[in-house]
């Protein structure tokens, strides 16, 4: 017997019976702050990422409203615009996409692998605090006139320091996560039998491990140069040029890579059967992670294709396809094979699939958009088209994250979100993403410049595009806030979920809900990629 029920005991917070409420509160805070329980570490990442997500979308809305009247009324001072754009991108990339995907993986992967804990759990917790401290410092410094293009030199230094600390924290958490997948699998669980999300955590983790140290090295150079010499990297104006790749495509695909696997996992469960093309899904997820190659080279590999020989065209085409086309192909494979699996099985209506599936669709639209914008004759370089790509990819990742929280919520909290709320918020988030990003695609073709809120004009309903985009960002902010409120309510006083509410296939659903502190009494033995289907009564597989 490898499972045990801990409904009665639940938390491992030190008992404080007889002590004051403040004492109990402080004990609870201390228990969370120093926890080595991977589920808590993951939930800390997820919770903060969603809060930052709402704030980031609100900033996007603010910038969008500012753009509505390109030469008229202004809400913001003109010298704050560049910092707000920096804040927006840094917040969505380093405050939302990375921690949201990392948090989901940290919370879920050890359970999926049949492991009692995360490898180097203290390192992961250290990573969380480093990430949080670095992110807060980076954001605060932007607020105090620092960041790229900032006017306060000390705050610019502080921004670089914060970003570096943030990267170190993320690297620490990723080392812990990837080591867990490589080492802590249950007996019989070879890598090809690992659940798709765990596989994606490993592939996406490797991709992050390839790119974040490169970012860290660049930040070290920038910090030393900006603080002491300002001779090599162009001072505060050079920061975006040197580290801008970390908040643009294709690097953002790396942040979304774990999410691709999450969607595949939910789709497999929704199909109600063993997936016949599981290997193709694993290949698709792996291919998406190849986006790390594009990030690590810190270059945009575009197509010029004017007045060039066939040989030159092919020379441009290969890196263009490898660095930008392959990740899109990976998402296409995952989406296609997932749909195939659903069509071949007897699909069930599962609410988490809605935001996850729509989210991955949005990521794909962003990737395809990037392929178009890199085609130089299209003339989209430096326009808001690129902002649209960024929004598609990051908001798509957020939607997948919402789906993941709805899917694994029962295992992490013991209660489930109402299906109607997940459906509704998934659709609302989808609408918000499309509204925020698609008008930017159109405005990009009309040459609306990126990173500016005024001083441009073009034939066409430019106010309409910018109004729609601003409304889309606002809608996304509302979606995330509503999701957080719904989750808060449902996970504290909602319907009890049962241990296997989705009739799932992987090990995390073999333990009680919420999962006990040490997950498993002993490591379970598995003999297939769907260990739960092996032991469920015959006929339970549709």
């Amino acid at each position, binding site marked *: *017997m*490898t*499972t045990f*029920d801990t409904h009665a005991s639940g938390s491992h917070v030190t008992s404080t019976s007889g002590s004051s409420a403040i004492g109990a509160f402080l004990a609870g805070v201390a228990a969370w702050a120093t926890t080595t329980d991977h589920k808590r570490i993951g939930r800390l990442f997820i919770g903060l990422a969603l809060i930052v997500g709402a704030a980031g979308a609100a900033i996007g809305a603010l910038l969008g409203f500012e753009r509505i009247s390109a030469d008229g009324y202004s809400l913001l001072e003109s010298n704050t615009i560049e910092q707000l754009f920096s804040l927006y991108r840094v917040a969505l990339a380093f405050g939302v996409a990375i921690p949201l995907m990392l948090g989901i993986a940290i919370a879920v992967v050890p359970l999926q692998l*049949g492991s009692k804990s995360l*490898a*180097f759990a203290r*390192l992961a917790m250290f990573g969380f605090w480093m990430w949080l401290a670095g992110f807060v410092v980076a954001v605060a410094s932007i607020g105090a006139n620092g960041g790229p293009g900032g006017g306060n030199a000390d705050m610019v230094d502080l921004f670089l320091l914060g970003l570096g600390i943030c990267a170190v924290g993320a*690297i620490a958490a990723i*080392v*812990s996560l*990837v*080591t867990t997948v*490589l*080492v*802590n699998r*249950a*007996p*019989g669980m070879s890598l090809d039998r690992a659940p798709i999300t765990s596989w994606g955590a490993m592939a996406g983790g490797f991709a992050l*491990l*390839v790119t*974040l*140290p*490169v*970012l*860290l*090295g*660049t930040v*070290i*150079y920038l*910090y*030393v*140069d900006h603080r*002491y*010499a300002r*001779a*090599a990297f162009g001072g505060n104006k050079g920061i975006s040029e040197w580290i801008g790749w970390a908040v643009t495509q294709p690097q953002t695909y790396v942040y979304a890579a774990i999410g691709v696997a999450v969607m595949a996992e939910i789709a497999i469960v929704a199909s109600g059967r063993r997936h016949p093309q599981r290997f193709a899904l694993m290949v698709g997820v792996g291919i998406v992670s190849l986006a790390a190659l594009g990030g*690590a080279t810190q270059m945009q590999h575009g197509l010029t294709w004017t007045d060039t020989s066939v040989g030159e065209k092919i020379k441009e085409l290969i890196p263009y396809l490898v660095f930008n086309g392959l990740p899109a192909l990976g998402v296409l494979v995952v989406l296609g094979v997932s749909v195939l699996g659903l069509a071949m099985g007897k699909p069930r209506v599962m609410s988490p699939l809605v935001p996850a599936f729509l989210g991955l669709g949005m990521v794909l639209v962003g990737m395809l958009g990037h392929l178009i914008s890199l085609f130089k004759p299209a003339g989209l370089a430096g326009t808001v088209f690129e902002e649209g790509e960024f929004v598609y990819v990051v908001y798509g990742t957020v939607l997948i994250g919402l789906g993941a929280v709805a899917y694994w919520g029962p295992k992490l909290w013991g209660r489930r979100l109402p299906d109607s709320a997940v459906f509704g918020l998934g659709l609302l988030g989808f609408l918000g993403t499309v509204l925020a990003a698609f008008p930017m695609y159109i405005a990009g073709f009309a040459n609306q410049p990126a990173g500016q809120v005024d001083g441009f004009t073009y034939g066409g309903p430019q106010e309409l595009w910018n109004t729609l985009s601003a409304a889309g960002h606002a809608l996304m902010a509302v979606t995330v806030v509503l999701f957080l409120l719904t989750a808060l309510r449902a996970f504290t006083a909602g319907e009890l979920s*049962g*241990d*296997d509410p989705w009739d799932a296939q992987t*090990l995390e*659903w*073999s*333990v*009680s809900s919420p999962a006990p502190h040490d997950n498993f*009494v*002993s*490591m*379970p*033995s*598995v003999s297939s990629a769907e*260990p*739960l289907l092996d*032991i*469920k009564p015959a006929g339970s597989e549709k």
Partner: protein
Amino acid sequence: MTHALPAGPQPAPRRQVFIGTGLVAGAGALLIGGMLSIWLRFRANAPLRTSSDGLYQIKDWLPEAIKIPEVITNVNLGTFTVICIMAQWAVYSSRRHDSRHTTSALGLTFLFGLAAINALVTTFTQMEIGVADGAYQSMFYAITGTMIALVAGGLGYTLAALFKSIGGRATNTDLMSAHALYWYFLAAAYVAVWFVVYVQK
């Protein structure tokens, strides 16, 4: 209801520390590799100037007044070689449950690690350059400073292994192998920095 899965056999000994250290070493390699690639990019894009003997057109990258103390940087190659031998000696001893030799090997690794840091810092003092003097200088301090930080991390690792060894866990071969792996990575990183920054300049 919960689903009862059969308990698996006792898992094989896991090399968790070794794998984790390998990942850290890989990340460190990309950190140094990324910094070296930026260094090379700056050097490649530097304008040309006539060499001091007037015979050649050379890249105006390393300021003429700066002389790199090559004896120190070359000797440091030997230091890293010795460190790797010591770290491997610790692995060899721990596999043979020889705690005295393991502790000695780790102690020597620590001492030679200190010597390596000393040599790296001495290059700063002998070159007599300031970090604020220009592009080359700030980048030189950034990359060699990062190298020093990585070696300092290695010293911390050695201390942790040393304390474990003194505390009676000298036979933890996973830890000793991982510790040696980290020093191998540091030696490789130093060779790359030595070649690009100190030799090719």
